[in-house]
Structure formats: C-alpha cells, structure tokens
C-alpha cells in the first residue's frame, strides 16, 4: 500500500523555484531517503508533505488522505522531527513527551513517554532539561517527540546534521530500529551520501529543485554500469575512471601511465557509491 503519494509538487519563492514539479511514491513500511546538496529543495518538499508549507501546485496524499487544503486530517498519522527545534526550556524530556502525547489527546502519556525514551535510548536523560543535553541527545528527544503518538509515518529532516561521527552512528541505529522493529514508514532527508546508502530502502536524489534519480541504493549504483571505481592523482590532478573488470582496468591504467612516463599517486580501487551516481548525473562533485 502507498504511504505517500506526491504528484507534480511545485513551490516558488518569488522568482526562485524551490521545488519544480516533483512526483514520487513511498510504500508503507519503507525507509525512503531524499538525498541532495544544500538548497536542492529537500526540506521544502518535506514540509509540503507534512502540511507546514502550502504547495503552489500539485497534491500530496498521506495514507490516502489529501494533505492540502487541510493538513489537520493527516496530523495524527504523521510524526515530524524538524531540522531545528529548540524546545521549551525548564521542562524535562519526560514532561515534554507527556505534554506532546496530551496534544494528541492521548491519555497514556506516561507509558508512551517511557516507550519512546527506551526506543531512542534516552532513559538516562528522562528527567533532564533539554538545554542540559548534548546535541545528539537533543536530536533523539526531537525524534522521540515525533514518535510519542505512535504515528504510521515518520519524517526526519536532516536528523544527523551537526552531529559528530559517533553520535551520528548511534542515531542511525535508532532510526533503523524505528523502521525495522517499529514497522513504520520513515522518510528522511540528508546531505550525507553514506547515510542515505546505509539507512534507506530507496533514495530520491534531488538537485536544483528536481528529483534526478530514484531507486534503491544498489539500483542507483548499478545504473552506472560499472563494478569498480578507480581513482588516482596524476600531475596534481585527480582522475576517476569506472570499469567492469577491476584487475584489467588497474593494469591498463598503470601501463598507460608508464608509457606516458607519468607519475601516478594515490591509486585506489573500490566499488562505486552514490557519490559517483551524483557525479555522473550532474557532472558535479557532491559536496556534503
């Protein structure tokens, strides 16, 4: 069953087209990633789906219900972690969670708070104020708040931005658990290629307000038609080549360089990644 149906969604800010007629579907239970550089239109897209930003044209359905013109009809079905939310000071994690449960008219706030605190691994900080917690812990709290009313679809807008590598990996485990154990549909935006590759069943690559590719990470990489990526530096310039046969390609590269009398440094051979997909599609390097 389709969890999210996006049809021809467009948003303009004056002259600037932030989102240019994009369409895609997210299946129920899927972990769906929207990957792209900063300014590609990811957050605007997400906010139109969440009901925060009104599209200029196009329609969004969440679990069969139209989000626009009245986003309230989907509010209790979705849980949202915004890119930056400073929450109230002087309320503890547990109090905040119970309050949010109450916003959804739930009377089991205390149990729900405990469940989601465990889910995001924040039980030890249950009675701490948000401003006394680390960036990673605050982000977990924001995710817990998105989960407290047990929604079917969870939106995470750049959940790991600004976190150190360790905190990022910890958060990945949390997101995997929400998706795998909780069975929820997860839609996340990210500008980390590795994050999209490791967390998402399918990835939509956005660039300059459009979706330029959409497939499983493996499918996107396979579309390159190459099994290996060979990179090296020659005369201070970085070169990249894609090939099917690793051994042959490496030998060929070295032989060609020897014949030219050129010096090759930093030769590396690995499987291609989403970074290569982006490079191939846009002709530009992906900058995180």
């Amino acid at each position, binding site marked *: 069953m389709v969890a999210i149906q996006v049809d021809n969604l467009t948003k303009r800010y004056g002259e600037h087209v932030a989102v240019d007629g994009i369409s895609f579907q997210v299946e129920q239970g899927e972990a769906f990633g929207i990957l792209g550089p900063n300014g590609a239109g990811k957050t605007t897209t997400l906010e139109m789906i*969440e*009901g*925060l930003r009104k599209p200029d044209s196009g329609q969004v359905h969440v679990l069969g219900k139209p989000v626009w013109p009245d986003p*309230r009809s989907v*509010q*209790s079905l*979705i849980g*949202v972690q*915004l890119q*930056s*939310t*400073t*929450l*109230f*000071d*002087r*309320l503890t994690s547990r*109090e905040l969670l*119970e*309050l*949010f449960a*109450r*916003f*959804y*008219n739930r009377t089991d706030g205390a149990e729900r708070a405990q469940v989601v605190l465990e889910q995001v691994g924040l039980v030890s900080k249950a009675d701490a104020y948000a401003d006394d917690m680390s960036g990673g812990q605050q982000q977990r709290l924001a995710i817990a708040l998105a989960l407290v009313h047990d929604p079917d679809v969870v939106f995470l807008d750049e959940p790991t931005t600004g976190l150190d590598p360790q905190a990022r990996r910890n958060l990945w485990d949390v997101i995997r658990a929400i998706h795998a154990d909780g069975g929820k549909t997860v839609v996340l935006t990210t500008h980390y290629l590795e994050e999209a590759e490791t967390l998402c069943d399918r990835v939509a690559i956005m660039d300059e307000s459009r979706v330029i590719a959409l497939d499983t990470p493996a499918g996107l990489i396979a579309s390159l038609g190459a099994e290996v990526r060979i990179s090296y530096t020659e005369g201070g310039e970085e070169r990249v080549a894609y090939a099917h046969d690793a051994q042959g390609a490496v030998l060929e590269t070295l032989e060609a360089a020897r014949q030219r009398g050129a010096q090759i440094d930093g030769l590396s051979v690995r499987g291609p990644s989403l970074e290569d997909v982006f490079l191939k599609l846009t002709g530009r390097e992906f900058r995180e």
Partner: protein
Amino acid sequence: MTLSRIGATTLAQMKMMFRRRIVLFWSLVFPIILMALLGLLFGRSIDAGTITVIDASHTPASTAMVHALSTTKGVTVKTDQTDVTHARKQVQDGDRDALVVLTKTPTGATAAHLYYSNASATQAGIIRGIVSGASSRISVAATGTRPAIVFSQQSVDSASLNYIDFLLPGILALAIMISAVIGLSTVLVTWRKQGVLRRLKLTPMPLWEFLVARVAASLTLALLQVAVLITFGALVFGVSISPTAWAAIPVALVGALCFLVMGFTVGSLVAEPETADAVTNVITNPMMFLSGTFYPVAAMPAFVQTIAKVLPLYYMTNALRDTIVRDRGLMYVMPDIGVLLAVTAVLAIVSLRTFRWE
C-alpha cells in the same frame, strides 16, 4: 477532552514559568525589595509640611481658601508673615515648605500664587495638589454648582494615607504589569524565532489553546503576586489592609489580562526577542512614573494628570489602592475595571490582526 488538554498545557506552562528563578525574582522578590527601599527612604507618612499663607486680598474666597488649607490634614498653615520677599526666602532656606499668596486681580477675582521648594519632589507635588485642589474646590463652591465636599475627600485622603499604605497597591500594580507584559511579549517572540510555534503547528492542538494556557498560567502568577505582596505588606510593613481587599482579586485579574494582551500585541509586532524587550521597556517605564505608582497623580501637574488618564496602569493602580487600603468595594472600582476591559478589547483586536505564527 480539550479542557483536560488545556489543563495539562497550563500546568506545563506554569512549570516553565515558575522554574525560572529570574521570573520569580522580578515578579515577587523585587517588588518587596522596592517597597522596603521606598518605605525607608520616604518615611511612613506623607506630610505636606508647613505652608505660609499671606492673604492680601481679604475677599470671601480668600478667607475660604485659608480655612480650607488650615483644615486639610497633614498641612500646618502659618499666617504670621506679611512680607512676600521674606516669606519666599523662608521657603528657599527650607524653614517653611511652601508659600501661598492670595491677591485680588484687577477684575475682582482672587488669585492664589504658590511658591514651593523642589527639595523634595514628593512633598512639592503633594502641596501643589492640596493648594490647587483647595482653590478649585472654592471656585466650584462659589459658582454654586456642586457641594465643596467632593474634592476635600480626595485631597485629605492622599495626604493622610501612610506612605507605605499608599505604596503597596502601586507596587503591586507595577509588578503585575511588568510580569504580564514581559510574560507574553518576549516569550512569544522567542517561541516564534526558535520554531517552537512551528513545531506545535504539526500537532492537532490548536495554537490558541497553547496561548490560553499561557494566559492562565500568567493569571495564576498575578494572583500569587496579590497574595504574597498583601501578606508581606500587612505582616512586615504594617500596612492596614481594608476588609474590601478581596475585590483586589478581580481587579488584578482584569489588569493582568489587559497587560498580557499588551504583551501579546508587542509580540505580534516585533520579530526579535531583544526588540521585544526594548519595546516593553519603552511602554512600561513611562507608565510606572506617570500612573501614581510611587506618588499621587492628583499631586502632579495638570498635563501629567491628563496623560495619566490614558494609561491603563493608572486605572489598575487606582482600583487596587481603593480596594486594598481605602475601604472601597468592587462596585466603586467598576469604572476602572471597565476602562481596563475596554483597553484589553482594543489591544486584542489590533494584535489579532497583526499576529503571525512564523
């Protein structure tokens, strides 16, 4: 369901409010410190002092004026001088507090000229109030339109109240105003800027509910201020609390509501928390000095009195003073409550038109 949600939200708002020590300091501790300081500085009672009166006209009006001044409580009238220059010097040197010279004008009317020292602003103001009050009372009596008793009541009152009695309701009104204006302006702007309102918009709870909860929490704070300041005033400063003081509760609630809506208006119009603070100060500071908080408005120059009458704090201060220390009940202060409600309504209309969530 919604009602219990508002209840839970109000409770959360109260926690957010009362857990901030700075809020408790400004709303409860600071007013007490201010009251103690002013009480110490200006003594226990307002004494207008000794006034020299030189009656050079000897008309019925001037005689009535001398009589009116001599019978005013808190004023000692001396008629032992005849030389205006010498009497003026006495005021200048601080031997006397003021000089009133009554002369006959070419048209046959009586002119009262007041010389006073600015050494004590409070005292000078009270003397001005008493003298101008007495003269207008006599003019009214002369034209025969009204009994003279109307004015004498008022002027006797402000002079005979102990200063600390006078001060307590003024400080209470001030404290409620400041807590209420800040309680909604800066907070609202900060919530908007930090994206809190945006996050709440994603939940099924309508945002007005969140604001209603905030207002309810702030009104609770106002009630706490009434209770704490009156108790403290009575027990520590020996303020004699009128039996009508219970009527201060509705006055405080309506006044707090008025200033909460004022804070909401500020919060609707500005974008930065710092700007909200500045605008709040620009609004509250003049009100604090012009509304009779520390000093009777009746004793201020006429143009200041005119300004005071457009300030909501003036009405709240008046009504609190009437109910807490002047023995006047709820019916007596209904006009003040009416003015506060009218201001609230106007501000509410303005703010709802300019309000934005993001």
